């Protein structure tokens, strides 16, 4: 009774494929009932209700199943070494701006297989929250069978943290005031136009303060979010809040600044008060994408989060967006991912029921038109 994985051989990408499904959740164009998706060379060629299937192409008959775009985990730490909690954070130095998280990633780890079985096809691999100025996150597709193209973005911005987790007793900063001072100091230095030789930190931070690359800022409580907003305001940063769990309490301020939020997983052990927060934030106009923050939690929890949020006030359409297109837009890959639309990558998840039902299980997952996971029947 095992789960089998089909890593397809090369050459199959050029194969065309047609999928018939009971319900196609396009995300951006509503739900298509009894529709067809035509895939060609790894991309979605067409999707609709009455589409003629060309002669001779392979047909996947999923006419009693639901299809949705592959889910995007907006922030996780999978595939790092076995001693999972140490690889996420470069804790020796407070400023680790030039650490490329991709360097620590093992594409052949079991985590990747697990992710696929949970319907996650793209992730933002990120450092943790223990460095005030952290490393460089990456956006990856989990179809590791090909030698190319699975790294969508090698360094997608810079990670910052204003959480108390970034404080340590034996390394600076040890206090919140010190933390903010440090971040400001580094950003000020990056703004300067000095040329005093090799300084990777400054070059990288220049991307954020000058070249408008995204700053991903970890902040959970209201005071932390306020600190993050202060930095965003002072340095006119393009930013995304990571965690922002208490963001609903100051939702209007976050919405005002057009800050999207990467939201941590809602768990079956969460209290009612916390389960309502995501819905409240979305209703205030904040764009939310769910993250599993694995290994702190499980990859299953990504879809479970959306379901719980929907149960507690988030409307179902937005809940599905938060697993797909919202993350794609925040991560800057919406031209290729996040919805079932013509021209986008054929990254699809096939379920035996409504995606927002815990009773639905994932039957098959495709990336670039290739079957990368298939559930074994007993």
């Amino acid at each position, binding site marked *: 009774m095992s789960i089998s994985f089909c890593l397809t051989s090369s050459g199959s990408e050029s194969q065309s494929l047609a999928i018939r499904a009971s319900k196609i959740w396009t995300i951006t164009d509503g739900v298509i009932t009894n529709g067809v998706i035509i895939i060609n060379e790894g991309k979605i060629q067409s999707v609709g209700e009455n589409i003629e299937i060309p002669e001779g192409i392979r047909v996947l008959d999923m006419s009693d199943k639901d299809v949705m775009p592959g889910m995007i985990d907006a922030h996780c730490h999978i595939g790092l070494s076995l001693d999972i909690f140490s690889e996420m954070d470069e804790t020796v130095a407070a400023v680790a701006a030039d650490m490329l998280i991709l360097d620590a990633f093992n594409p052949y780890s079991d985590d990747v297989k697990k992710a696929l079985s949970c319907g996650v096809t793209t992730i933002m691999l990120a450092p943790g929250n223990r460095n005030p100025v952290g490393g460089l996150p990456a956006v990856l597709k989990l179809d590791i069978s090909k030698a190319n193209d699975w790294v969508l973005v090698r360094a997608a911005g810079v990670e910052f943290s204003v959480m108390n987790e970034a*404080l340590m*007793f034996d390394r600076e900063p040890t*206090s*919140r005031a010190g933390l903010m001072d440090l971040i400001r100091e580094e950003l000020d230095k990056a703004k300067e136009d000095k040329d005093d030789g090799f300084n990777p930190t400054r070059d990288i931070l220049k991307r954020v303060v000058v070249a408008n690359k995204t700053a991903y800022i970890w902040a959970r409580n209201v005071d932390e979010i306020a600190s993050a907003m202060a930095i965003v305001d002072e340095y006119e940063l393009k930013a995304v809040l990571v965690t922002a769990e208490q963001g609903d309490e100051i939702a209007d301020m976050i919405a005002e600044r057009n800050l999207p939020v990467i939201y941590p997983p809602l768990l079956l052990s969460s209290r009612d008060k916390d389960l309502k927060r995501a819905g409240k934030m979305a209703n205030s106009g904040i764009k939310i994408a769910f993250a599993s923050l694995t290994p702190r939690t499980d990859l299953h929890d990504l879809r479970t989060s959306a379901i719980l949020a929907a149960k507690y006030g988030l409307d179902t359409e937005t809940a599905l967006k938060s697993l797909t297109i919202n993350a794609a837009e925040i991560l800057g890959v919406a031209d290729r991912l996040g919805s079932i639309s013509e021209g986008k990558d054929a990254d699809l998840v096939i379920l035996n029921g409504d995606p927002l039902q815990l009773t639905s299980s994932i039957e098959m997952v495709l990336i670039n038109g290739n079957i990368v996971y298939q559930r074994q029947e007993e």
Partner: protein
Amino acid sequence: MRIHVILLTFLLLVSAFVAPGRAEVTVIKAGKILTMSGEPITDGVILVEDGKIAEIGTGIEIPEEAVVIDAGKSVVTPGFVDASAPAPVRGDLNEQSGEITPTLRISDALDPQSKTLKRVVQMGVTTLFVSPGPQNVIGGLGVVVKPSGKIPQQMIVKDEAALRIVMDLDATQGNRIPRYQSPTNFYYRRPGTRMAIIWMLRKSFFDAQRQADSEQIEDPNLAILSAALNDEIPIHVNARRAIVIRAALKVADEYGLKLIFQECTEGYKVAKQLAEKKIPVVLGPFYYYPGNMGQYREGRKVNWNNAGILAKAGVKVALSSGEQSGAIDMLTAAAFAVRHGMDRDEALKAITITPAEILGVAERVGSLEKGKDADIVILSGDPLDVTTRVEKVILNGKTVYQ
């Protein structure tokens, strides 16, 4: 089922009589109003509009739509100003990575959800001066805040309100050669003694002066110290023992610094000098709880006559909670001071307008005058009576505790 219906009924009946506090104009009637800016007003009225005091006195016309708080025979005072308050901050207060950290702003660490704020409000404190931690020689910039607002920025009354210098041995905390650790541990550094503290202070100001003279601002830390040298930022010095106070005065003379002393437990020994130099003093707690004293016990035996002696010598004295949360009550501090020699009116001013003046926020808080913030405390009786209770606290015109 029955119980619920009866309860609901009761609540409804009660709600019919309780006035909702949503109107913009509030009127407070009280038996005795201690304004701290003149004679007390008997049977007076305070008219509050949009969070500020619009009118105060007797014979004031009460508008129709005003919400009336009738405090009966109670005594009304301005909200108390704690010029050395416990810090509503999450996480560690002290930045251990260095001893001279003037650019650190404690306002960055404020936590509006801190339980400390609830506690101090219950004691009638409406304005707090929060300093960086006491473990650095020059700890950074303090901030004057009010216990209101959702985010730290909304709490701030005056940011970068003062530079904190700590001269007692507290500043040496953590700086030792750890016995079983390598010498490269970042706790292995000066100062370990009082000499080193004073040396570091001198060096910092010396460097600051040099940088200022050369007109090149290289180091933002020194820039802050320059501002302090030019009296642009007030300097608060924590000093308990008389020898430390004297040392501070010496450094101040050398660099032309204008100081304000905090704690100043043995201030009475140098009362004359302090008066001559017109140095204001914010006294610490009137009692250090043994559990709260930490490693450094010098100077923590309080002489209760301190406040009285300093005041009589002509020193501007404010009374504070000394960063001790929970137990020390502003009113009790004032009562103790009076019991041991301080003048009644001066003591009450010492927890209201005097600290406001010392902190430079007196145009907004500290006394009940037209145009100032409506921060008001209603007491059940004489403020210096130990059986008096805080009945109601109004902050920016809104009732925040009752």
